[in-house]
């Protein structure tokens, strides 16, 4: 794995290797096992490159587990969930809160939806494989992972504008190299300005850029396809787990008024939904201090309030 370190500039002659982060689910653990566990499920970009500032702010108060998805073109959301469960079990992580960022909320609902079958010990159609990350689709988790609560960060249940997701999927598939270069280059420039107060995120924007390979684009397109197909409303309606929502006020990608309205009406487990004024869709990165404070507050509420 390559690592640009904490500084913004890097010595000449540096070498960065991104291959290891390509094909397998990767999991990084920060913090002591004695701390409450928070598992970060990244958005469409699929990796931990934009979570540095949030990780730093919340560091020392939770055991922060961050995930990079494999660049798969075939997995279902259930495959994602099964692999994450297996990776968590492989690392001895048996309970924790889920933090689903944007697309990560779809993986989150898949994990929540699997909870009843796991509790019932339903492993009948699963293989017993093992991968280098300890994680392959449908690998049996030795211990049942216990979800303590779920937090949507710029997340959603069924996407409120599915037509836009389908459009994005088509656009991502047909985009020319010249336009792709302009979009990623433009995003990187904007991101450097946007995250100018988040040095940890700023330091990983180069990493974010380098990871945008052709396979990565196709994997993102596949995730958009999964997103457009997925409808976890029955899971969200029936779950007994405490549900929380967090959004930035400027979020054209996942308009929070629709998400919040649906949750308030249809999800009895919704405990709170917070809008942060100074943030946009990437609420964890654009307002890391406020987001971390809110997440900690939810995680540490007495259980009778949950």
């Amino acid at each position, binding site marked *: 794995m*390559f690592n640009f370190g904490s500084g*913004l*500039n*890097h*010595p*000449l*002659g*540096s*070498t*960065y*290797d*991104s*291959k290891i982060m390509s094909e397998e689910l990767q999991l990084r653990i920060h913090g002591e096992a004695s701390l409450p566990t928070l598992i970060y499920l990244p958005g469409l970009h699929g990796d931990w490159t934009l979570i540095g500032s949030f990780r730093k702010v919340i560091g020392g108060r939770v055991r922060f587990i961050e995930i990079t998805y494999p660049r798969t073109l075939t997995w279902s959301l259930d495959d994602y969930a099964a692999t994450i469960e297996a990776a968590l079990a492989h690392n001895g992580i048996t309970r924790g809160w889920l933090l689903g960022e944007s697309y990560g909320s779809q993986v989150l609902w898949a994990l929540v939806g699997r909870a009843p079958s796991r509790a019932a010990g339903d492993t009948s159609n699963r293989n017993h494989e093992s991968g280098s990350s300890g994680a392959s689709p449908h690998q049996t988790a030795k211990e049942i992972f216990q979800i303590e609560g779920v937090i949507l960060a710029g997340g959603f249940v069924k996407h409120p504008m599915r037509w836009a997701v389908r459009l994005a999927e088509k656009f991502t598939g047909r985009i020319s*190299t*010249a336009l*792709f*270069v302009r979009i*990623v*280059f433009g995003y*990187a420039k904007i991101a*450097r300005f946007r995250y100018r107060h988040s040095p940890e995120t700023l330091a990983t924007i*180069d990493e974010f*850029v*380098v990871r*945008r*390979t*052709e396979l990565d*684009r196709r994997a993102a397109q596949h995730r958009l396809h999964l997103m457009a197909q997925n409808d976890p409303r029955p899971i969200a309606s029936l779950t007994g787990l405490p549900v929380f929502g967090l959004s930035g006020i400027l979020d054209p990608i996942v308009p929070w008024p629709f998400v919040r309205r649906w949750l308030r009406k249809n999800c009895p487990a919704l405990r709170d939904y917070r809008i942060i004024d100074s943030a946009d869709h990437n609420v964890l990165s654009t307002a890391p201090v406020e987001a971390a404070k809110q997440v900690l507050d939810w995680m540490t509420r007495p259980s009778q309030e949950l």
Partner: protein
Amino acid sequence: MKSLNICTTLALVALAIITSSCATPSRAFHNTDQTALVIQSFDSQASQMLQPKTSARENIDQLLTEAAALPQHETAVVILEDYTEEEIGDQFRDRGTPWVVGLRRLGYQHIVFLKGLGVANPEGLITIVQYY
């Protein structure tokens, strides 16, 4: 006895120098991939393909279109002319990022950036950064 000690000391110093110079990776580029795409980038606008075939000066879009038609997409070497940074900073990000994104999109796994000296041969030029 005294001369033996001096000889031993000198030998140890020489050994240390040899060992440390072997352990430190050289920043001078040596091309091991004969199918590599070599590009000379004059500024953020103009560039030229040097290998496997020579092109006219053209912009990044035109050059990437030509590169897309090449049979091999393994190694790409980009020589940045008039590059003055002592460590990777804004200048590299402004000039290098479009190449990284475009070449990655075309499937190049190994991308090397070199500090240009106005020559068309990349051998021995100083490596700015390389990505695998």
